[in-house]
């Protein structure tokens, strides 16, 4: 592996989504016969980089060279053709088809125009064996397999395409400890066969065991590249930190001493996504939810809001146990809860409907008498909200889809404030909105807390958690791993506990495998 000429190189790659830059003149060099780990916190540009490599999105500028020749990929299929295969986080398997069908799906072997089932079976068995998953039967239906087995099929499917560069994006996140060991063996064997592997993971111990080389991304740039094992975990965390911008956050008075607990959870568990979560939020308090994306934060908020079924544990409002069976129950009456959902375009708003209709949608019961909307009252309340949140719109009767992202988000928040909620759950409300609007939302959040609301706030932006929250709970694998209070909330502490490298070095693997 010494003196290898780079197999693949990316130079000066930039990509913007709207006004937000995801990658800024990023470089990456991949050599054959090596495992290359890519590190970085949420939104550092890792996934955009991979999508560009795999032909899912096109870069705005920059060049890619493969074997010294410049290349560009119009589609994932084109990238596959060139030997670059990516295993994405979201699964691309077809549930109702068998494992073998899925493995050969993009190019099935044919005989007389029909799919050659024997050849298909052979290819599938080979691929499964190479992936170290011979225990999976090629005829089993994908939908009948548990998540960890599906991920193994996904790996086998990638191997069946005979890649030269294999990208694994969090491909081990759902695997059991035994599977991870197998996958590692496979990956090491592939390395010895001369493949280039790109490995993205948040599990530091995995990277330590596997990688030959590491590159750290931050703010859309590659900030450091070093041979694996030459830096300590702490040094790596330092490299990942360091945002350029900083916000002005309002002061945090926190809850008064006399404040009562409004929202409380005891031993909340759901499926395999929430694991024995207990927490409480006082009136006037902003409690943050931290951790890597997808560690159960979204499910936790949905659990409070009455969306999940089969929840075990207790939810208490004002110290009294309640059972919340629907968003209607959560938002109406005594509970007075509001959820600012994750995706404002599909969960928060009806885009083709007008600003007015969207604003009053969650409060229709309050604005109407005997089912008939009191238009004067509606107008008054809407005027209040448009003023309070400074929503910029060309009128109340234009489709809400015509507003900017930031103003759309303000509409989502305003429609809930029209109910004057006592408990406000926010699911990453500042994602994809401009800096100015973010500032306004921080001010608003504090203002609502000061007025007595209990706020549970999930954010993927650590800066926000530091700036806005009185306390932060860090989630990992669906469980609260750490609680940070007041001055403890630092970027270092947030990242370290998000990666679960703080304290017990063994990590969660044993726990997950047990």
């Amino acid at each position, binding site marked *: 592996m010494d003196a290898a000429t780079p197999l693949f190189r990316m130079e000066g790659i930039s990509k913007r989504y709207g006004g937000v830059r995801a990658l800024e003149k990023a470089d990456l060099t991949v050599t054959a016969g090596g495992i290359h780990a890519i590190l970085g916190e949420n939104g550092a540009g890792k996934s955009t980089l991979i999508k560009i490599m795999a032909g899912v999105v096109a870069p705005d500028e920059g060049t890619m060279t493969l074997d010294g020749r410049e290349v560009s990929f119009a589609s994932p299929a084109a990238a596959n053709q060139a030997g670059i295969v990516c295993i994405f986080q979201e699964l691309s398997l077809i549930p109702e088809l068998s494992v073998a069908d899925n493995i050969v799906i993009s190019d099935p072997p044919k005989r007389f125009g029909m799919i050659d089932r024997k050849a298909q079976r052979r290819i599938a068995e080979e691929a499964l064996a190479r992936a170290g998953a011979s225990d999976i039967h090629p005829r089993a239906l994908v939908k009948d397999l548990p998540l960890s087995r599906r991920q193994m099929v996904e790996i086998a499917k990638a191997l069946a395409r005979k890649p030269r560069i294999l990208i694994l994006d969090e491909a081990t996140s759902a695997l059991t400890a035994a599977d991870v060991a197998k996958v590692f063996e496979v990956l090491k064997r592939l390395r010895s066969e001369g493949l280039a592997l790109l490995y993205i993971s948040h599990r530091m111990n995995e990277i330590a065991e596997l990688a030959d080389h590491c590159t750290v991304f931050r703010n859309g740039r590659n900030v450091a590249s070093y041979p694996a094992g030459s830096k300590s975990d702490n040094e790596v965390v330092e490299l990942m930190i360091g945002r350029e911008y900083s916000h002005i956050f309002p002061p945090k008075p926190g809850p008064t001493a006399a404040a009562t607990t409004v929202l409380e959870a005891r031993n909340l568990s759901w499926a395999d996504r929430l694991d024995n979560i207990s927490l409480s939020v006082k009136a006037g308090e902003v409690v943050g939810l931290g951790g890597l994306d997808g560690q159960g934060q979204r499910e936790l908020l949905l659990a409070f*809001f009455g*969306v999940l079924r089969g929840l075990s544990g207790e939810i208490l409002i004002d110290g009294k146990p309640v059972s919340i069976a*629907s*968003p*209607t129950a*959560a*938002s*109406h009456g005594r509970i007075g809860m509001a*959820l600012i*959902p994750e995706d404002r375009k*599909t*969960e*928060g*708003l*009806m*885009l*083709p*409907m007008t600003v007015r*209709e969207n604003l*009053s*949608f*969650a409060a*229709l*019961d309050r*604005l*109407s008498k005997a*089912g*008939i*909307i009191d*238009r004067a009252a509606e107008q008054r309340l809407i005027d209040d909200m448009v003023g309070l949140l400074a929503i910029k719109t060309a009128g109340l009767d234009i*489709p809400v889809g015509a507003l900017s992202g930031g103003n759309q988000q303000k509409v989502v928040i305003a*429609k809930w404030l029209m109910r004057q909620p006592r408990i406000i759950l926010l699911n990453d409300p500042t994602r994809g909105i401009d800096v100015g609007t973010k500032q306004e939302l921080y001010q608003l959040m504090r203002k609502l807390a000061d007025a007595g609301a209990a706020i549970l706030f999930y954010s993927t932006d650590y800066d926000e958690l530091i700036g806005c929250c009185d306390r932060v709970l860090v989630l990992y694998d669906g469980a609260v791993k750490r609680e940070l209070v007041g001055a403890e909330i630092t970027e270092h502490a947030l990242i370290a506990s998000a990666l679960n490298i703080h304290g017990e070095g063994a990590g969660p693997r044993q726990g997950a495998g047990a």
Partner: protein
Amino acid sequence: MSETTLGGIAGRMPKFLRRADPAVVTAFACIVILLLLGSLYSRSFLSPEYLLQQLKVASFLGVIATGMMLVILLGQIDLSVPWSVATGAMMACAAAAYGPVGVALAIPFGVLCGVAIGIVNGIGVAYLRIPSMIITLATNAVAQGLMVVYTGGFSPQDSATAAMRYLATGFTIPGVPNAVIIWALIGAAMVFVLTRTSFGRAVYGIGNRERAAYLSGIDTRRIVLIAFAVSGGLSAFGGVLLAGYASKAAQSMGDAYLLPSIAAVVLGGTSILGGRGSYLGTVAGVILITLLQSILSVMQMPEAGRQIIYGVVIVAMLLLYGRAPASR
């Protein structure tokens, strides 16, 4: 959704026209064109008598299409219209056979039978989440089975009550048939419900994005159930009126109303995917369909030609403005 491209002209148009849905304007334009074409064929097409007669015929379809529209606004469909219509008609006539009480209760009984069919549909769609197309086909079959058993397979012998006949054919205001007044009242009520009530807002919200409506604390299942019940009731009421018009019910009287009611709603600019559309458009669609039928029959176009023209016109209009977004 999209602002009209003829911005300059639109700026000078009256406000109500500027805000009008292009589909509704198109539908009304088609009505005018049809009338002009008809008047070339025969002078009487523009006479008040002919127009009122058409409006009267249109009002039966109008009542049925009102219910259909409510369901389509939710992004669902009601294929149980044929036998909801027939059930309403037959049950109302049947009740009439049971003495004076039966006569008095004939109309509400007929409508309630339709509501019952609609409730089964609504439970299937909202609570069991069976695709509306499937469950309404099934209830249609069950309703048909029940009616066949009830009538013994012959055309029903009971005849419509005087009240039913009066509603369908009588005149309260000289010159204006009662059927037209009924349609106007139901239409006005529908406009009110859709634009002024929380129920109406919820219907549009669910049609646009049921997930967002649910997360906004709307009891989406209850709304869907009610909408289907209303649709069933209105179909049955349409049947009651038709029975009054013909003095009795008939086995397959509803068959001729399924496609036209869907077509009227969709041609009036209501999106088949739900969430978008105005009642004015449905009015235009109903009149358009009725005129088309009338002209085809005046021209002595056989049933075959009518069916073909229907189908082609609907597909063509849908391809013009009823398409799903390009990528999903």
